[in-house]
């Protein structure tokens, strides 16, 4: 399983990468860590004319805390997220999730931006962008624009990015006081794609939950907010009755599709189990 032939250029600047993307629109792929793109090339699922290697663009490799948000450069690797003290302090769910992505050798190369731009429905980061209400800065020759993650994912490997655009940075609003969050995924073996996985976040005043956000991955063609379940939990204490109502909503919220090993019914059942566990962790 060898990759097909392609041209290769190491972009020396963001402007050059955007120019190449524009020039070869539709026939070029951005190569970041390559941990999804190279297997796709090996399996000949993708046959681009040109790979634009952006690995030298160090300005895209950073984790920065501002007054209002955590900004993660698109080239930041899963291993960088896993080890970042700022991420652990502000968003421990991201630290936990990073450690669940494939294996150490893959986390050393795979990037957060690459995972989001690819929009694999089974990947952790796209769902995290929904749960934590992130926004994404896209760059192209036409300039930059910032889009909310909510409207970014359109389907299996499909996003709102134009052919000449690339992901530059990821913006995560700092958590409001009283915010609790939880992450979990169910896999047969460590490092496998999840059968189902979710991020849950909510604000807690006293015992009452508000602004609940629940994002699932690995269940449908794209990462999803479970809006029915979110509404069912808002204004409650996350008690057993509220959790049961939220679990009931997941059938309509997720409408799971089968993967190679699990039926939609299995995925729905396990998603309900996972939701109850994660809500319990918000306590």
């Amino acid at each position, binding site marked *: 399983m060898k990759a097909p032939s392609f041209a*290769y250029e190491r972009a020396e600047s963001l402007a050059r990468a955007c120019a190449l993307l524009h020039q070869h629109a539709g026939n070029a792929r951005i190569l970041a860590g390559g941990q999804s793109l190279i297997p796709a090339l090996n399996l000949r699922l993708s046959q681009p004319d040109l790979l634009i290697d952006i690995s030298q663009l160090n300005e895209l490799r950073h984790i920065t805390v501002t007054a209002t948000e955590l900004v993660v450069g698109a080239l930041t690797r899963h291993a960088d997220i896993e080890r970042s003290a700022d991420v652990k302090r502000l968003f421990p769910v991201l630290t936990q999730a990073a450690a669940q992505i494939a294996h150490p050798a893959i986390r050393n190369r795979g990037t957060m931006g690459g995972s989001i731009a690819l929009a694999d429905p089974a990947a952790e980061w796209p769902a995290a962008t929904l749960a934590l209400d992130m926004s994404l800065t896209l760059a192209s020759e036409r300039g930059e624009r910032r889009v909310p993650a909510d409207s970014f994912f359109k389907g299996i490997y499909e996003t709102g990015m134009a052919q000449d655009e690339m992901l530059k940075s990821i913006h995560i609003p700092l958590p409001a006081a009283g915010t609790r969050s939880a992450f979990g995924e169910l896999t047969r073996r460590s490092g496998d794609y999840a059968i189902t996985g979710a991020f849950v976040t909510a604000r807690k005043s006293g015992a009452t939950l508000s602004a609940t956000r629940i994002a699932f991955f690995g269940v449908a063609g794209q990462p999803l907010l479970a809006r029915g379940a979110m509404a069912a939990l808002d204004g409650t204490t996350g008690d057993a009755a509220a959790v049961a109502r939220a679990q009931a909503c997941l059938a309509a919220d997720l409408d799971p599709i089968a993967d190679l090993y699990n039926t939609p019914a299995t995925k729905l059942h396990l998603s309900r189990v996972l939701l109850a566990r994660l809500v319990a962790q918000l306590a």
Partner: protein
Amino acid sequence: MENAFQLAVKVNGADVAKTVEPRTHLIDFLRNDLGLTGSHIGCEHGVCGACTVLVNGEIVRGCLTLACQTHGAEVETVEGLTESGLIADLQTAFHQRNALQCGYCTPGMLVCATALLTEKPHATREEIREYLSGNFCRCTGYEAIVDAIETTAKNRAAGKQLAATNNAEAA
């Protein structure tokens, strides 16, 4: 050659300059162009870990890395680790504990364990298993491999302690 790339990379401490096709995987470059056949090719899509090598001191999949992506980097293979003597204790432990049968996965296991022992010198068995979860062995069932790595970790910790005590006494 169409789309030739002039690659300059340090492999096991030696500077290498070669013309490669961009589509050439690092593992094929090491094995076919440089004759470093210690690293093995298994699944060729990132699942089995047989092709694990170090790039700038970090483990990567040789089948999920293009040779041209290592331009300007330092690559180390099981041959380099062996020649340096840095993993002689680990290799002895593998031998003594019979942590291999066919040996196909062993180079990847050794390189992965090298990184683990550096990153987490006091790793528990659970942590060793988790770290090795991306390296498949189809013969031994992992128990002996975990034993060998655990033994090496303990011996190295004891060795360090001994050295520290000796230094303190010498001072």
